[in-house]
């Protein structure tokens, strides 16, 4: 090196230093609402040990977390809670949608289950599977780290460009068609009250 550097000093970009620190100490917020939550617990426990990737500090207060893991189906009564939790998390924050239910509603295509949390909150990483194996979740965490290292900035200005949500439109064509099914079946005799003596 031409200029003499003292020992134990290295040069880097501030962004890269911040990304290095952030990506290696992700604190997950476990939003476990169903069976996927069990697999999330397995990921945290000794056999799979998510601590190897610096993401073992599960905090049950959103104020202390920077990685939301949505594990399980989200029903319409729970969605406002999820949105509130997402908004309470301090910047910078990321979101992993874990399992078929959180990503798309899975097999629960019913009136109460939200068909994918990405319709209403921003999602960075999707994990397929029902439930995903712990390895898959760990892979998602590693991918998340890579994404942070690749795109992250100290001030979080990469988030400002994401002004549209990436999920499906909240009201898709199917939904609108179903809304038209509201008309009750006409001329069905069963609607007339029977004569009770």
């Amino acid at each position, binding site marked *: 090196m031409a200029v003499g550097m003292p020992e134990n000093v290295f040069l880097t970009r501030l962004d890269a230093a911040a990304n290095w620190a952030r990506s290696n100490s992700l604190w997950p917020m476990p939003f476990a609402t169903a069976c996927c939550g069990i697999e999330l617990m397995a990921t945290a426990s000794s056999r799979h040990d998510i601590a190897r990737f610096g993401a073992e500090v599960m905090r049950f207060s959103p104020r202390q977390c920077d990685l939301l893991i949505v594990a399980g189906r989200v029903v319409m009564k729970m969605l406002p809670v999820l949105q509130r939790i997402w908004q309470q998390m301090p910047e910078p924050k990321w979101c992993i949608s874990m399992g078929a239910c959180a990503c798309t509603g899975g097999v629960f295509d019913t009136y109460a289950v939200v068909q994918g949390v990405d319709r209403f909150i921003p999602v960075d990483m999707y994990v397929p599977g029902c439930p995903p194996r712990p390895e898959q979740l760990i892979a998602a965490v590693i991918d998340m780290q890579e994404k942070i290292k690749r795109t992250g900035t100290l001030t979080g200005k990469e988030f400002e460009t*994401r002004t549209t949500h990436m999920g499906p439109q909240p009201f898709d064509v199917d*939904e609108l068609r179903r809304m038209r099914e509201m008309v009750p079946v006409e001329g069905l005799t069963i609607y007339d009250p029977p004569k009770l003596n």
Partner: protein
Amino acid sequence: MVEANTTVADLRTQFGNELTESSFRDNHRVHVPPEKALDVLTWLKEQRGFDMLVDITAVDYLEYPDATDRFHVIYLLLNMTTKERLIVKVPVNLPDAALPSVVPLWKGADWMEREVYDMFGIDFIGHPDLRRILMPEEFTTFPLRKDYPLKGFGERHNFPVLTRAES
């Protein structure tokens, strides 16, 4: 059990023959017209010792072959001393689907009636606090009615969208 049959026989001498009976295996069911429902249930509790109300539920018979009534409200009763069980079915119809509440008889009926109200929109007159119990307050329809589509009218997606830039 034989006793259920004698109970039904006594019920019919007491309340008239329009109380019909049916049974499947050891399930004994009486069909009671709605205006007699409260009297019959009171009599069953006070004279026959049916001191436990196991459940209240309902069935929507829309488009069911040969059905004459839109709903049946079903009371499952148990006599804790004799282990006798009885099912009481009460037909209810729109537009004003309503029944007298049985909370004064069995305290446990409180949440059960709220659930039936929430899912089927059947009114329980005299209930102390008839509100929705499972669905959110702002829900306007009754999801277990057969004319309610399985995937709903879009309530599940009626929320504001948070984008990354603004949250």
